[in-house]
């Protein structure tokens, strides 16, 4: 398969700080690729190197198979949607979209018809003569994307473009972005710190931390088979249990916390008894019941007291403190409404399948 973007062992340093550390990456044609990481992980530096605003200290970046070494941003087959969109306030919507075409010396009437066609495709037909400040947040977003896509780039870079929008609009724009990408078939490289954006939108996600990729995979792989403690903790909600490895039974490890709680989880990587380990248990894998008999068979039972109820519609959860060790654990409430009458202070039992919890050697990183 043709790779639209290949990043080959790229490094960028600022003084003694390495922002991007010998990082490699390949994005196939037509895919939606996200780079997910907390702020300061180097994802913006990486994006700016791809766009050409920064030059890598080491390594090479190839776009459409062509090395971009020494190629200025205005000569790369790449366009970028900026964090705050950077629409030109001194120009109309049509002039914004036509800007790049005019720079390529496309004839004015051809520019005009391409701008109109593009406005039609992003659902803004007839907005050509509007001023930028007359548009809503979502419309500005579409103009920013249209302004780049009208140039038919090999690669579209998006720098957290949804960050400035309110929640409702952000949810809406997520769907719109995915549809636009499917429509145009352009390869999108999207950077964000919002894991929900990355999971919803992408074909592949790279989780980045301290200048390196922790794991690259489909959203499902990242969620269900995290390969490092960082990915397990960063992608989706998770309960983290740190302790030392006790009995190792095949791939199931028993983790004993400092407070004395012993839980069982599936080992990721080689773990021997005595290792410092971290286990992660997703809130939705923990079963909640009022009596032990109601727990699914095979689940190791714990007793706890309800600390607080976190009602959030379909994402409702409950914080439970294990009765002996006072370890706090977050448990998702089932959608059936079976625990709608649960009160703080009530005693409950809970347990989870050891196969669905994952355990790492503490501090391990991606390859």
């Amino acid at each position, binding site marked *: 398969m043709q790779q639209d973007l290949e990043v080959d062992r790229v490094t960028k340093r600022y003084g003694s700080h390495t922002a991007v550390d010998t990082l490699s990456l390949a994005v196939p044609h037509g895919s939606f690729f996200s780079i997910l990481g907390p702020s300061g992980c180097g994802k913006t530096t990486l994006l700016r190197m791809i766009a*050409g605003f920064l030059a890598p200290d080491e390594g090479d970046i190839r776009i459409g198979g062509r090395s971009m070494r020494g190629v200025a941003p*205005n000569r790369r087959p790449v366009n970028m949607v900026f*964090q705050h969109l950077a629409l*030109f306030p001194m120009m109309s919507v049509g002039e914004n979209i036509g800007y790049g075409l005019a*720079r390529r010396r496309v004839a004015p009437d051809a520019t005009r018809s391409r701008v109109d066609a593009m406005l039609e495709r992003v659902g803004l037909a007839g907005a050509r003569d509007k001023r930028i400040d007359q548009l809503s947040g979502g419309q500005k977003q579409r103009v920013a994307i249209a302004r780049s896509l009208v140039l038919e780039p090999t690669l579209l870079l998006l720098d957290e473009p949804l960050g400035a929008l309110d929640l409702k609009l952000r949810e809406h724009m997520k769907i719109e972005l995915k549809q636009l990408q499917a429509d145009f078939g352009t390869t999108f490289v999207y950077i964000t710190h919002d894991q929900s954006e990355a999971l919803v939108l992408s074909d592949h996600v790279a989780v980045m931390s301290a200048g390196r990729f922790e794991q690259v995979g489909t959203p499902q792989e990242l969620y269900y088979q995290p390969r490092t403690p960082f990915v397990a903790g960063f992608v989706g909600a998770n309960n983290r249990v740190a302790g030392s490895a006790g009995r190792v039974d095949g791939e199931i490890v028993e983790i004993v916390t400092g407070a004395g709680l012993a839980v069982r989880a599936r080992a990721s990587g080689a773990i021997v008894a005595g290792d410092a380990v971290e286990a992660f248990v997703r809130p939705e894998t923990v079963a909640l019941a009022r009596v032990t008999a109601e727990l699914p068979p095979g689940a190791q039972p714990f007793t706890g007291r309800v600390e607080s109820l976190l009602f959030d519609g379909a994402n409702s959860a409950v914080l439970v403190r294990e009765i002996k060790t006072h370890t706090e654990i977050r448990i998702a409430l089932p959608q059936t409404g079976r625990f709608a009458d649960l009160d703080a202070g009530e005693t409950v039992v809970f347990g989870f399948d050891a196969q669905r919890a994952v355990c790492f050697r503490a501090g391990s990183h991606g390859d």
Partner: protein
Amino acid sequence: MATETAGDLAAPRTRLALLLLLAPALVWLVGLIVLPHIELAVLSLRARVAPRIYEMSLKQYATFVDEPLYWHTFVRTAAMSILATACTLLIAFPAAWYIAKIARGRKKSVLFVLCLIPFWVSETVRTLGWMILLRESGVMPRLLVDLGITPAPVEMLYHDATILVGLVYTSMLFMVVPLVSALESLDDSLIEAAYDLGGNGWSILRQIVVPHAAPGIVAGSIVVFMLAVGNYLTPTLLGGKNSLWFTEQIYTQFITRFNWEQGAAFGFLLLLLSTAIVWLGLTLSGQRFGDVMRRA
């Protein structure tokens, strides 16, 4: 009810306080600008028919039209001032760009202060400094001889170019300050976006930077033009007898000829001239006076 009473009582008091606060500005405005101008207007519209006897007349303005030297000086002053404004803009723009967009932290404030430092000495001293540098026995002609560029010292004072140099130097700060503030408010990502979409330095300057900075450019240009047109010292000292600056004509009428009526008419003509040119500049650049002055 109680709050209403309090409000009623407070209203006249607030008005009084406002009036007192405005008093110095009002005194300044009425006493030093409005009243003298009314007096000048009256003066300019009368002619002496016999000792101590005056009558209403447009004679002073007629003299201006009839005498070629006067309106020649008038047009020359306007043209030179516009040229000085354009030169100041051309020199100040890169400097302002550097201060606003490239220099960071300490360097930025140092550069800003450097622009300000010449204003710590009086205009007379600054202009005399130029004279020391440029006169025939001065530093520059000496240097040119030493470098073998000219065989003998040349007189660099009393040329039109010398007047321009002096005017540009005097008004630089008034151009740099509004330009820096206009350029600082330009989001860097706009420039990056334009570059990313295929723009080059020139097209970005023309389509993104200049339209954004237009109010600052116009504000700086108005101030610099006004300063140049109304300048007396610099053209007189650096241009000598050849300077032919309109303010000199006004000075001559008032002080040398003691013809206050003629001087007043010239003063009014200068006011009309600068107003007309500023209006023209605003119209051509499509800016509104209020917006521009807020940037200055």
